[in-house]
């Protein structure tokens, strides 16, 4: 295989992967079936790693595949499969196109302390305290958030503009889809990372992947023993330095004929750039590198200890996963716990496993899932919760359960989901229209899919809602439908641990088919 073919294959495949990922996240018409979404996300390293850790080998085929792939071919994952990596290539290429001087490629020394330090901290924090540090840095979820928070609204606005135009001509193939607004503060973290990633990739290619990204660093460690790698033919090489300038990872030291394999993402651009065909991708040839590794190890330990000391204080204060109940006021909704998605079994389990990639937020047909701000505690920022003031969890749907790549939301059969109690409806009589205005309403009862909220006789002809806890599934349709403001007259208080709801009982109607017209 010639060198330029390899690089072409890389470009084509990675563009394909990027298109797939982008379409999964911005598919607001929900055209892509869940099983295809799973097929696309299963190979993502950290999500499938979580499945390995919490569920077992079978569910985590993707993780094993990536490990093996890295052992054999090096960090091909970063170039072919990581959506954030590919996105950075796009940025980097655009940067190069706009202005040549943006690009500052060429061999650079690795930021050894920083990258291994960050990896160590991520690992330690994740193993001991919780997932939040990984959530911040993990490339797949960063990419997911970029798509859900930034690209999807843009696509929706375009779509709404076009659908408005087409609507004037009586064409309704495009449907106006309102953009879901998240709390403004939520955008801060993805915005910061977007700026960071854009700046880093514009000028320095894969700098983010080789300094900050914990997955990149981890795979870099493994790729040090990979079988296939980029090699120099020292006889052919004229030391022109073109390869070094073409290298996005700044890892080719052409003067010493050395490629830093831990940073090389196998983009194959160097192969293409070499006029003398001195570079090739093939089976490893053993070289001695003993001393250098030793040095790196020393730096690694020192760095991680330093960074760890510096940052451990801030992370130890974030232990409270479940927020404490707030003080009750007579008509304010006294929500003790937020509501987390069905299939997540409970708050503790959910906040432990969710990396806030926001895929569920994107696929939710009802837009009830929104990133939390502080409902799960500060550490659970951006993890999705169900916001019943915005929407409700529709009865006949298990989409978020089907697509979750980490297993934070476990799949359930539709019938089982319909009997999972996420929370309980709580009725506040003092807020209710029927009580305060003495007029009929019943919006809550009308929307209840199980009739856990039913109407009982009140004053005169009026009927007033009453709740039946054991058949309530906490879908929040009642809360959503309740017309009172600012506080609802009925709201769902989350269950910290999801419970099983009873199946609503029903008896045959006593009315008979009329034989004669009753009028």
């Amino acid at each position, binding site marked *: 295989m010639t060198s330029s073919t390899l690089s072409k294959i890389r470009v084509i495949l990675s563009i394909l992967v990027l298109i797939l990922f982008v379409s999964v996240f911005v598919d607001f018409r929900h055209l892509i079936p869940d099983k295809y979404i799973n097929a696309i996300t299963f190979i993502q390293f950290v999500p499938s790693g979580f499945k390995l850790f919490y569920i077992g080998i079978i569910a985590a085929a993707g993780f094993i595949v990536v490990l093996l792939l890295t052992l054999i071919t090096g960090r091909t994952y970063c170039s072919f499969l990581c959506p954030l990596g590919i996105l950075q290539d796009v940025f980097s290429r655009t940067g190069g196109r706009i202005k040549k001087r943006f690009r500052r490629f060429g061999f650079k020394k690795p930021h050894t302390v920083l990258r291994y330090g960050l990896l160590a901290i991520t690992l330690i924090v994740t193993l001991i305290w919780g997932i939040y540090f990984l959530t911040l840095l993990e490339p797949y979820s960063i990419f997911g958030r970029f798509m859900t928070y930034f690209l999807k609204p843009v696509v929706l606005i375009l779509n709404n503009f076009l659908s408005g135009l087409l609507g004037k001509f009586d064409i309704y193939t495009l449907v*106006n889809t309102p953009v879901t607004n998240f709390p403004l503060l939520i955008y801060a973290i993805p*915005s910061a990372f977007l700026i960071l990633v854009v700046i880093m990739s514009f000028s320095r290619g894969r700098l983010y992947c080789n300094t900050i990204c914990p997955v990149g660093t981890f795979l870099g460690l493994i790729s040090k023993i990979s079988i296939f790698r980029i090699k120099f033919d020292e006889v052919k090489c004229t030391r022109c330095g073109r390869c070094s300038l073409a290298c996005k990872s700044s890892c080719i030291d052409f003067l010493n004929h050395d490629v830093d394999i831990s940073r090389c993402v196998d983009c194959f651009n160097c192969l293409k750039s070499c006029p003398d065909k001195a570079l090739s991708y093939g089976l490893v040839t053993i070289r001695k590198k003993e001393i250098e590794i030793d040095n790196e190890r020393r730096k690694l330990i020192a760095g991680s200890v330093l960074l760890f000391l510096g940052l451990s204080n801030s992370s130890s204060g974030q232990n409270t996963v479940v927020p404490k109940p707030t003080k009750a006021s007579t008509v304010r909704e006294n929500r003790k716990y937020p509501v987390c998605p069905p299939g997540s079994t409970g708050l503790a389990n959910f906040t432990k496993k969710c990396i806030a990639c926001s895929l569920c937020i994107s696929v939710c047909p009802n837009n009830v899932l929104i990133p939390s701000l502080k409902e799960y505690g500060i550490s659970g920022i951006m993890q999705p919760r169900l916001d019943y003031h915005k929407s409700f969890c529709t009865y006949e749907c298990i989409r978020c359960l089907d697509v979750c790549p980490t297993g934070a939301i476990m799949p359930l059969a539709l019938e089982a989901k319909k009997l999972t109690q996420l929370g309980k409806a709580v009725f506040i009589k003092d807020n209710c229209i029927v009580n305060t205005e003495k007029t*009929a309403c019943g919006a809550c009862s009308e929307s209840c899919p199980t009739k856990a909220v039913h109407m009982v006789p009140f004053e005169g002809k009026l009927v007033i809602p009453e709740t039946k806890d054991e058949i309530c599934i906490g879908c929040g349709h009642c809360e959503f439908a309740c017309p009172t403001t600012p506080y609802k007259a009925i709201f769902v208080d989350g269950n910290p641990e999801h419970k099983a709801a009873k199946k609503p009982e029903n008896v045959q109607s006593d009315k008979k088919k009329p034989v004669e017209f009753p009028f």
Partner: protein
Amino acid sequence: MLSVLIIIYDIKHLTNCEYTTYILHRIIKKKRIFRNLKKGKAIKMKRRDFFKKSIGAGLAAGAAISLGGYDKLWHTTSLPTGFDMVAIMGGKPDSMFDLGIQELGGIGTFVRKGQKVLVKPNIGWDRTPENAANTNPLLVKRIVEHCLRAGASEVYVFDHTCDNWVNCYKNSGIEKYAKDAGAKIVPANSESYYQEVSITGGKILKNAKVHQIVLEADVFINVPVLKDHSSTRMTCCLKNMMGVVWDRGYWHKNNLDQCIADYASYIKKPALNIIDCYNVMTKNGPQGVSKEDIVNMQSMIITTDWVAGDAAAAKMLSLNPSDINYISMAHKMGIGNMNLESLNIKRIKM
């Protein structure tokens, strides 16, 4: 960072592209007026056309209200065949409609060649047809077919659903059946499809945001399904109108019964109400819990007077029409007649 936040803030304001659509609308409107002015008599022609249409479709409501006391007038609006209402029993939804509409002189009495027709079923819930939470899809299909055969230029079908609209349209079967018959399925999921109108006859409900198709259509056919209802006791013709407005919460908040009656006084009334009583949800309405709630009544009521239609439908559920607040309110406001004894009803058993 700041600029990004500002952009996001802007996006929040442009959510539905309301502004762009608004501007476009203004441009298109201006052009239209300009063109009409050039032609001179174009506007007059249109107005005459409108009156012809409205008389043809039995929509003399505006004039009637201005004369005062619609209660006395409504007798004169009976149909060419002399019937105010046709009730059919004992068949499938489509064959009952075929028979019933024939008694009223065919759909051509209401739909003229080249007219735009709105068929408004109840598609409120994400339930399958056998659960009868939505209008029977077979009936919707047959109505659309009749309209197109009568020469309708376009037949629109939509509902502002309570559940997720995509699932409602799909799982109710109505999307597929209506499309197969040649109707145009219109979304109603976003506020941008609605336009503010004033309801002059309303006591509480003075304004409402109404779906643009209601305003555009020449003929409006209401196709509710009869169901039990948790708070208003039953839902049928009048309550089906909650699916053409955007802000239902306002109705719930401000005397639901009165708002339902108020909206019925709005000028764009259905020319025909076709009540699906094939499978009737007799309890746990309007969504139903399981099939135990359903009674297979195999009936249908077709009428031009929707208050009378609701009164007859109430009797199908063995309720007294005067016990349903919004029916008596609408009767008192002169929207229709709930006294079934004074009506000329054709009853057919198949």
